């Protein structure tokens, strides 16, 4: 099984889907001649030509609008928002329109579009190239929201997203692009949207996470295993719809739960998960639900030191795990 990075897995998924289905095309800022600022689309222009690999102006609203128009007319666009921080002009096209196509037409029309959105910090991106914005879309019925953490999941889920008939926001954590390597099977495979993955089994507590910090959770869990604390780590992979079954099954087993995300705490996905656990598994809880998340500041700071403070680290997560284990 070949080993590849997250960015290579993303590129392979796009290439294979474009080869498989002529309705699939991709558009975005600098994705053609430049191959994308992260090189996610490198080589695609050469392979598929300018009709299927579209360089667009720096205008997110039109990227969203073009993708939506193409989608409702039978195409399967993959639009790249260069940085998640710049997605806001396209919110009307995404939430105001795309999310409501199936519902508003009583199922007669669908919008099979994918928005690939690099997000997240820890890359010295400062205030405008680092934000976690996923929860704004995870809140929205009518959308599917994916945030993989490994090359295997990235490829399988991106292929599933492209084949899905509804609008999918596909969040790729920038720092995982070249940081995370992993095995990816040869050939075609998809991973069902809406299924979490138990990345590490354990009996003492359940830690739910996604994206970059999931890897920090796994690091912390490995550290705690040496201390005799057995941590189960769940990778959400999909933020909407949430795989509450996997979460609840695990919490019923361990009776302790913690949610970790890079996004800020108040109103984050951790609150939703905590609420689901409290609603459905209250009688199985042996401790208050813990959240480890970014601090309540408006954006990822630019100072490297402050950025490090902002990011959940394996050390911070391990400390929180010890607290929860000792409760």
């Amino acid at each position, binding site marked *: 099984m070949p080993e590849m990075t997250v960015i290579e897995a993303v590129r392979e998924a796009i290439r294979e889907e474009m080869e498989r289905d002529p309705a699939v095309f991709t558009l975005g800022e600098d994705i053609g001649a430049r191959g994308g600022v992260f090189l996610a689309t490198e080589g695609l222009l050469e392979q598929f030509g300018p009709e299927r690999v579209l360089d667009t102006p720096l205008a997110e609203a039109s990227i969203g609008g073009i993708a939506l128009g193409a989608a409702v007319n039978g195409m399967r666009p993959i639009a790249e928002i260069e940085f998640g921080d710049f997605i806001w002009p396209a919110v009307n096209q995404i939430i105001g329109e795309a999310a409501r196509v199936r519902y508003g037409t009583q199922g007669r029309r669908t919008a099979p579009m994918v928005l690939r959105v690099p997000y997240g910090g820890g890359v010295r991106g400062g205030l405008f190239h680092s934000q976690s914005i996923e929860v704004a879309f995870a809140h929205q019925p009518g959308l599917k929201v994916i945030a993989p953490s490994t090359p295997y999941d990235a490829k399988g889920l991106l292929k599933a997203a492209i084949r899905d008939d509804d609008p999918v926001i596909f969040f790729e954590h920038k720092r995982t692009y070249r940081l995370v390597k992993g095995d990816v099977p040869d050939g075609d495979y998809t991973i069902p949207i809406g299924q979490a993955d138990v990345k590490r089994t354990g009996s003492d507590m359940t830690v739910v996470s996604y994206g970059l910090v999931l890897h920090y959770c796994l690091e912390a869990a490995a550290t705690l295993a040496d201390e005799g604390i057995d941590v189960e780590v769940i990778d959400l992979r999909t933020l909407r719809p949430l795989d509450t079954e996997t979460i609840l099954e695990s919490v019923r087993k361990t*009776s302790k739960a913690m949610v970790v995300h890079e996004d800020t705490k108040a109103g984050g996905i951790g609150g939703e998960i905590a609420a689901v656990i409290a609603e459905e598994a*209250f*009688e*199985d*809880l*042996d*401790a208050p639900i813990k959240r480890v998340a970014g*601090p309540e*500041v408006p954006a990822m*700071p630019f*100072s*490297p*030191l*402050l950025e*490090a*403070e*902002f990011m959940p*680290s394996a*050390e*911070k997560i*391990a*400390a*929180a795990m*010890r*607290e929860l284990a*000792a*409760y």
Partner: protein
Amino acid sequence: MATIGIELPHVGESVTEAVIGKWLKQPGESVEKFDALVEVVTDKVSMEFPAPHTGILKSIVAEEGETVPMGAVIAQMDVDDATAKAAEAASESEAEATAPNRVGTLIQGANVGPTGGTFRDTALEDQIAKRAPVAAVAPAPQQPSGERSYSPVVSRLAAVNGIDLSTVTGTGRNGRVTKQDVQTAIDAGPSTSSTSSTPVTQPGPVGEDLVIDPSPIRRMIASHMVRSVSEIPHAWSTVEVDMTGLVACRTAQRQTFRERHGVDLTFLAFTIYAVAGALRDNPLVNSTWEDGKIRLKGRVNLGLAVAAPDGLVVPVIQDADREGIAGLAKKIAPLVERARSGSLALADVQGGTFTLNNTGTLGSVLGGAIINHPQAAIVTTEAIVKRPVVLSGPQGDSIAIRSMMNICLSFDHRIIDGAEASAFMQAFKRNLEVWTSDSELN
């Protein structure tokens, strides 16, 4: 000289209050440290409390017989300044030693926020390396906590498996009982101190006990009874009633009564009529103890204990003292029917001020009922039985066969003494004995 308050000391962890006994020193007397100051009585111990300081007993705050919480000031003493200062310092350090220090264990508070602190111009990695341990962990303090609280899963597992949590050693933070601790206790087998709490719903083999899960109404009755008995000091009184006249009245007029009013002329109607009248004339018996005050009820709403399929229910006849025999009979019949068929409305069971329990229908001749909390009393009417009775007449004593019935009162001794109880019982008895076969039924 300074005046300081003398506090009742904590004598044991489960003791929260004590009754002040005899003061062994009087105000104005000089007191040596460790002199016996006052007798203190708790439900566990009775002891002489020694004076904590040398000085003069200035005033007594808690009088003999008063119940005071632990830590409350019971007296004022004049002591010299040095003693006063030392006493103040001691109580402060005690307060510090017992206050839970939970804030220091929280990781959120321990971390330096990104907008706080001053960062020196040195290598980033150095800074992070120095900072990391701060975020890592402040060790959880192992202070014993006074009251134990249990997490949902611990409570549930203990209940399902019949584990007495007070016997489980906690290994969690501050000695908290964790799920793992309960699991260990379950694996170790049934706890010896709670032999009866294992719920069994299937009958076991012959010869084995069968433990039943009580129905919710049974549980409610149980807690109601426990509450009544534990809160109300019960006292009892029994009086013999000659029912011969009443029996004759009922026998003679039953037929015409039914024809006139369409309902049966029951003993119950007579009884309620009699008891309602007696309550109207003895308002203390129709009252309730309420936060140290006695509330005399403005209405006589008579609760009637009725055996229903699910358990005891007490439908209420509102304003029972305003009805005649016929009116009561007409009210009773449908109410009892609704009670027996389990179709009582909420209004049927609300507002009772006194309860009548006609245990005689079950063959009982004597009872000691539990008061229907928060009422002041409950009365039972026992079986009417024919007995030889000595009657006094103008021609001297004679023995006759009479229909006799006992009426038994349980009353709240906080409100009612024997005298008031007897007055009520005599009125009740009179109201039952006035009848003859040709009495006019109103």
